[in-house]
């Protein structure tokens, strides 16, 4: 920060500093993410392996239930790959959503004692989940090698879908983070939303099994678009994308992010007073 710059604090006029401050505090953003990663891998005995074991076991269960017991169609790709291509974005979203949602509460002492743009806190929680996502990605690579499954050109579009997942997690995380500070029972709702979301998202099965007339309605769940996008990019020619639904999901993701930022900014001023 320029030491000679004059800072004028006026009631109700903090907005103009905000985005500039966010840039000033970019290193804090990095440090908070670094702290969360360190703590995460220090606290669990099996450390890094945890990020691999959890999605892998979930995948096995889903393959067994949906692939073997329910015998759902796999669109011509090995069922484990079908499941894992969806599990990756889903776990990223659900972890980021949960971590970001609880991030302000778990950093309460910081928020009530030191100033920095609060946006940094949920954002760094999302980044930590992103790291888990990258680690879990190793399993997908392993599965592809094991089944000798080569993706086609569409794989290069994957970063686009990753960023949509990112935006979805960030938007939803901002909403819950601010609601969580204001209403203390929100933290009991978060796990339910995540659990419920897993069942209504096409993680264990392909969304092609949803009847055509319901597809658009189904896409109201923004994760449907994200997951379909992941499958489209990873599974290559075998996966189809339902474009009207995808556009709807994308639109909703953007709306959630924009309103999330707006609501977060609106309530942010009072965080230190009520946390």
């Amino acid at each position, binding site marked *: 920060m320029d030491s*000679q710059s004059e800072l004028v604090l*006026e009631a109700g006029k903090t907005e103009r500093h905000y985005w500039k401050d966010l840039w*000033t505090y970019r*290193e804090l953003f990095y440090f908070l993410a670094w702290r969360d990663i360190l703590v995460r891998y220090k606290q669990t005995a099996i450390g890094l392996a945890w990020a691999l074991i959890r999605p892998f076991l979930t995948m096995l269960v889903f393959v067994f239930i949906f692939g073997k017991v329910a015998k759902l169609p796999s669109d011509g790709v090995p069922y484990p790959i079908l499941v894992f291509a969806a599990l990756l974005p889903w776990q990223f979203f659900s972890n980021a959503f949960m971590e970001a949602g609880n991030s302000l509460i778990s950093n309460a002492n910081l928020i009530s004692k*030191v100033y920095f743009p609060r946006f940094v806190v949920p954002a760094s929680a999302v980044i930590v989940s992103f790291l888990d996502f990258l680690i879990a990605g190793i399993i997908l690579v392993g599965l592809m090698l094991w089944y000798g499954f080569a993706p086609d050109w569409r794989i290069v579009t994957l970063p686009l879908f990753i960023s949509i997942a990112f935006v979805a997690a960030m938007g939803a995380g901002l909403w819950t983070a601010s*609601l969580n500070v204001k*209403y203390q029972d929100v933290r009991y709702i978060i796990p339910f939303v995540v659990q419920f979301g897993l069942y209504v998202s096409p993680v264990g099965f392909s969304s092609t099994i949803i009847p055509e007339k319901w597809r658009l309605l189904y896409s109201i769940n923004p994760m449907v678009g994200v997951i379909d996008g992941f499958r489209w990019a990873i599974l290559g020619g075998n996966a189809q994308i339902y474009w009207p639904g995808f556009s709807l999901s994308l639109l909703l993701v953007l709306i959630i992010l924009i309103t999330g930022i707006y609501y977060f900014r609106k309530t942010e001023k009072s965080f230190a007073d009520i946390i």
Partner: protein
Amino acid sequence: MAPVITIENLSKKYIISHQKQERYLALRDVLANGAKSVAHKLIHPFSSTVNGTYEEFWALKDINFKIMRGDRVGIIGRNGAGKSTLLKILSRITEATSGKVSIKGRVASLLEVGTGFHPELTGRENIFLNGAILGMSKVEIKKKFDEIVAFAEVEKFLDTPVKQYSSGMRVRLSFAVAAHLEPEILIVDEVLAVGDAQFQKKCLGKMDEAGRDGRTVLFVSHNMGVISQLCSTCVWLDRGEVRDIGQTGSVVNAYMLSGISDLSGEKTFTDDVEKAAQLRKVTLIDKGGSVAQKFDCDHPITIKLEIKVRKPVAGLYGYILLCKPDGTHVLVSDSFDGVASNPLDNLPVGTWSFTVIIPPRTLGHGDYMLQFSLASHMADNFFVDAPGIVCGFSIDDVSSKRGNQRTGFLSTLLDWSKLEA
């Protein structure tokens, strides 16, 4: 010289809710209340909605002052006077309700010890983390790293998780990080309460140095000794308003004098059912048996305590501290002092009265404050009831030759006798 901090018409309002049954705001209650009020509106469309009562509380009211570059400013005032709110606004943690503050330069606030320390991380990791939280860049932290470690005296424990540190080590480390931030404005809130005497000295030295380097220090403390030693200017806040501002000496004096006049010789406390035992009433009684605040050295002062026990507490004892307005401890007494064994131990349920008598010619003349607490080493939080300073009184020396010119703490008259040659 230009001011570094200009505060204009600054006010901060808090809204206190009086819906007693709700400890916190819950989404389900908000939704339920919303539904209820909609239903209410439908049934009685013309009546106003019933809401809980809210009360406005002005933590700061129209504050105006300027702080010059290099000033070391003490902020004093009783609990709830608005000191912390002011610091929170200056360090941007909370926003003012109205008014304007202009600040030139970087502000570092040291509002509480070990803020932002993560117990699982090592000392080394926490230095970086805490530095970043206070607004230092990575390069800056790296450059000052050795200095910080040396100042905090934690070299041997750098790679130990902070959760294994003693509270003293944590204080030292957090102060060290903040002290090396080299901000233009340093805000310190009572950190020196912890840490050993030697480290406190070191901290004072560092703050002193910061002042001489042309940096501005804002310091909040209840310790008038430290304030007088460290600060050149003082701001006295009283119920959210600036009561006095100026040279430390005169402001501190005025503040200390008010300490006695704001206190009385009698105080009653409201029932608090949460407390197993509680001081309900304290009275200072003079030789004639009436409540008093002015005494003389030649007569005993009786402190009458009325203690209510709701649940017997094992190991319960009472503690009295007499101190001067500047905080100097003069006399400590606890209920183990008496000839009989501690009369408060396992005191049965009921309201009991005790007297504690200060013998004549014990305390010297001057103003005193009486602090009281009930505690037990066997109680969960140690303190059973800690009302703090409960009474104030003054003593005159009317009979000795020097009278009120006699210095020292005691008024004991010593016997001078001539030995036979």
